[in-house]
């Protein structure tokens, strides 16, 4: 279905949007713990929001946005405050990514979740409360609208409108240049790593 997993520079993300409203949506809700019994992330996509989706399947307010036909294939997730709080499980962004999500816009994000997304090349941009509600309303009003999230310009456009977003300079540069995958950067400083280890008292002075 979806586009390939993030690779290289990520100047922009384009696709339809899906709105999941609510503050403090924790990673147990994004991917319930029973799905963590695995040694690869491969099968997680269909399990994103599994319990929330089951709860809403037959409810008046349902079905869950991830189960609505018009949102299949959506690439941009629109959320509210403190999204991704709780457990550090990278299984949460992995599940979202494997479901098809390539970028998240919200009022705020829990830190570990944010870092996990960045490590996968999934931009998480923020907007103030009123702005976020306006974005969610516009997306909900036109589920077929294609939005473009411009990472460098920190902006979301679509449905005939455009909204300014925020993304810290560091992640912005990392995503724009393709340096969001940190491993090679970290390994580039081998001598500095050794120098740091050599000055840590607990590794040197009072080592048994």
């Amino acid at each position, binding site marked *: 279905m979806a586009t390939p997993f993030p690779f290289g520079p990520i100047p922009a993300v384009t696709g339809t949007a899906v709105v999941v409203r609510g503050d403090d949506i924790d990673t147990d809700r994004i991917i319930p713990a*029973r799905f963590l019994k695995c040694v690869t992330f491969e099968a997680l996509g269909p399990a994103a929001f599994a319990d929330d989706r089951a709860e809403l399947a037959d409810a008046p307010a349902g079905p869950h946005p991830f189960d609505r036909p018009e949102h299949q294939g959506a690439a941009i997730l629109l959320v509210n405050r403190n999204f991704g709080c709780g457990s550090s499980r990278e299984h949460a962004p992995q599940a979202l990514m494997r479901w098809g999500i390539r970028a998240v816009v919200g009022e705020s994000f829990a830190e570990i979740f944010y870092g996990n997304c960045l490590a996968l090349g999934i931009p998480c941009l923020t907007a103030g409360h009123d702005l976020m509600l306006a974005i969610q309303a516009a997306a909900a009003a036109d589920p077929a609208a294609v939005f473009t999230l411009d990472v460098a310009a920190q902006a979301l456009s679509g449905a005939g409108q455009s909204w300014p977003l925020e993304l810290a300079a560091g992640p912005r540069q990392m995503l724009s240049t393709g340096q969001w995958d940190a491993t090679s950067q970290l390994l580039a400083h081998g001598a500095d790593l050794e120098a740091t280890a050599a000055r840590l008292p607990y590794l040197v002075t009072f080592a048994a």
Partner: protein
Amino acid sequence: MSAGTLYDKVWALHQVAELPGGSTQLFIGLHLIHEVTSPQAFAALKDLGLSVRHPESTVATVDHIVPTTSQARPFADPLAEEMLATLEANCAEHGITLHGLGSGRQGIVHVIAPELGLTQPGMTVACGDSHTSTHGAFGAIAFGIGTSQVRDVLASQSLAMGKLMVRRIWVDGQLQSGVYAKDLVLHVIRTLGVKGGVGYAYEFAGPAIEALSMEERMTLCNMAIEGGARCGYVNPDQTTFDYLQGRPFAPGGEAWDRAVAWWSSLASGPDAVFDDEVRFDASAIAPTITWGITPGQGIGVDETVPTLEQTDPDERPLAEEAYRYMDLQPGTPIAGTPVDVCFIGSCTNGRLSDLQAAAAVAKGRHVAPGIKAFVVPGSEQVAAAAEAEGLDQVFTAAGFEWREPGCSMCLAMNPDRLEGRQISASSSNRNFKGRQGSATGRTLLMSPAMVAAAAIAGKVTDVRQLLTV
């Protein structure tokens, strides 16, 4: 911007380089791994053709998926067995010490690293588990990471990080009898909110904090993450040093004095500058319990479930969701709420002093009819110490089950789980919807002593009433 705090000092010492994106490469002194968040990291390492850079600074155990009844291999659950077998193979291949089942040292990762003396002041500690903040109790900078970051630490013994701000949580007074570190941290989170700590490290300080034991400090720092703070810490002091002395991986001989001198130098000085400070009075805190679906939805056991009018407008949608999910009525007392399951254990409250506090309540009493109550020691060492002083006998005589060490019912990755709409009194750390294994199961977080009181009474009960009888 903070300056002169323990966080600033430890951060500066571990800085390796500035990275192109503006983040800092931070050296990790101790990397703890377990079976849930490491297999994909090892697989990624292999894909990249890399090895583990510092296997001697990497320590493994198994905790999340282990059954707490029979731990015989192979496990009945083939997925759990595969996860442990994968961890064993990865540790063997890369020369990493694994404190496995039956080693005498296995247990919840945040219980065993401190009790083995692996966690020490001034370290940076990372683990693919959000409750890594626990280790901050020693004056370490300790935080949870995701699996891609586990890969990065395995490969480079370092991480790309942004520096946090530092908020000092100053606590005056002292906790009253029947009130524990768990109540203190639930009170802090209730006050500052589950988002209040985002962007911050929490320094816990003041007379009430200095009076806490190391195990109490671990409970406190463990739940910093539930308040949004990725790490929480306490400045090292004589309590810290006394705890560490003589532990297997703590410095010994003449190195001990050098270690203590260095550790002492790390504490935030009198001139330290904090980005923010919040003050509490420990004396005013009651046994605290959650009524809702986030750890911030807490109240004193003598209070009523808050009404919408008593709730901040921003928090009202969440409160309404919590009323529905928990099936609790606003304005009604939380005391007296019937419970089905009582769980004592977890990385928050599965240490010896936690079991002692619960046993003091259970001793000479009996679990109420129809209640399932069980105790899960945090580690094999905790189990042995508890059994040596007869706590297992106290619990079983009172109608509690005495189990094998593991994460158990804190999260639903092993056979211990809620069924249907069951409601638990739990000494764990998260009351999220579905957290304890049933998509409709309900959780009331509280101290181990309060869980024991709930088990005896069959309903939420102020433990102070049982302690004074």
